[in-house]
């Protein structure tokens, strides 16, 4: 079994090396792989991950691009299987409104509360007693 695994590894490395012969294709594969989440190690893209599934999915992308699919078609293929979660940048749609707009709403709310607090504060003249005025005048002389 260990021998078989090693053999498989060599084959994979060789096919990887062959694939390098088409640098433009490799660039597109890399770009797309950076847009897709690895579902095994969820905080990595499939470009960064070394999980076997990430490798499979990278091969899948390469195969599809080589067969003439557009970037959009490859992304749709992944979303159809793994859902929006596979997109490293979440799409802007009804279910993700809170995600995209929430921070701005909170910022606006904070700014409003701050403004109200500042605006409301009565502008009061500093009130000093006669004695204090005299003391201040003396210090300023």
């Amino acid at each position, binding site marked *: *079994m260990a021998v*078989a695994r090693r053999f498989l590894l060599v084959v994979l490395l060789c096919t990887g090396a062959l694939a390098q012969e088409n640098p433009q294709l490799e660039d597109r594969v890399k770009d797309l792989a950076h847009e897709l989440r690895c*579902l*095994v190690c*969820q905080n990595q893209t499939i470009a960064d991950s070394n999980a*076997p*599934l990430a490798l*499979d*999915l990278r091969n*899948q992308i390469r195969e599809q691009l080589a067969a003439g699919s557009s970037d959009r078609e490859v992304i749709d293929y992944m*979303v*159809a*299987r*793994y*859902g*929006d*979660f596979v997109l490293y940048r979440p799409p802007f749609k009804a279910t993700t409104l809170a995600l995209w707009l929430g921070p701005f709403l909170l910022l606006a709310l904070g700014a409003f*509360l701050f403004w109200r*607090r500042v605006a409301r504060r009565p502008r009061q003249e500093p009130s000093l007693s006669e004695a204090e005025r005299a003391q201040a005048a003396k210090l300023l002389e």
Partner: protein
Amino acid sequence: MRPYIIIGIFAALVGLLAVGLTLNPREVPSPLIGKPAPAFELPLLHEPERKFSQKDMLGTVWILNVWASWCPPCLAEHPIVTDLARSGVAPVVGLNYKDAREDALPWLKRNGDPYKLSVYDQAGRIGIDYGVYGVPETYVIDRKGVIRYKHIGPLTPEVAAKKIRPLIGELDGGG
């Protein structure tokens, strides 16, 4: 600001984070629920010359269980899969995922083979079509070949008793 407002905001945040902690980020909702099970035709694990397709199960409510001999959680859930299959609630088809025959067959011999049959997806291509990312995974597929339920990770007795059995009962009864 009045203290109760601050306490209120604090409590809301704590509540939000507490709920967040109980969610399982590994459970990615599958877009395949309610969709036809992706088509495949794969050789059987036991008889490489024979093929099996998801179409062969049309008309039956069935369970598709993705497993591999290299996957410890598969071993952990094996008694539950066995129990489901033996009880006759529904036929269980195994999808042997990215495995080698010389490992998979002895694994079944050692641990018992509850599957009606297992198909051999050595390259994991069908796994990708089914959105498999964490073996084991279990699907319930209805008579029309539509995926009705997916469980990611090892089955537990609770999931089998509270989700899978009632769902299959419902699908069998309701047609």
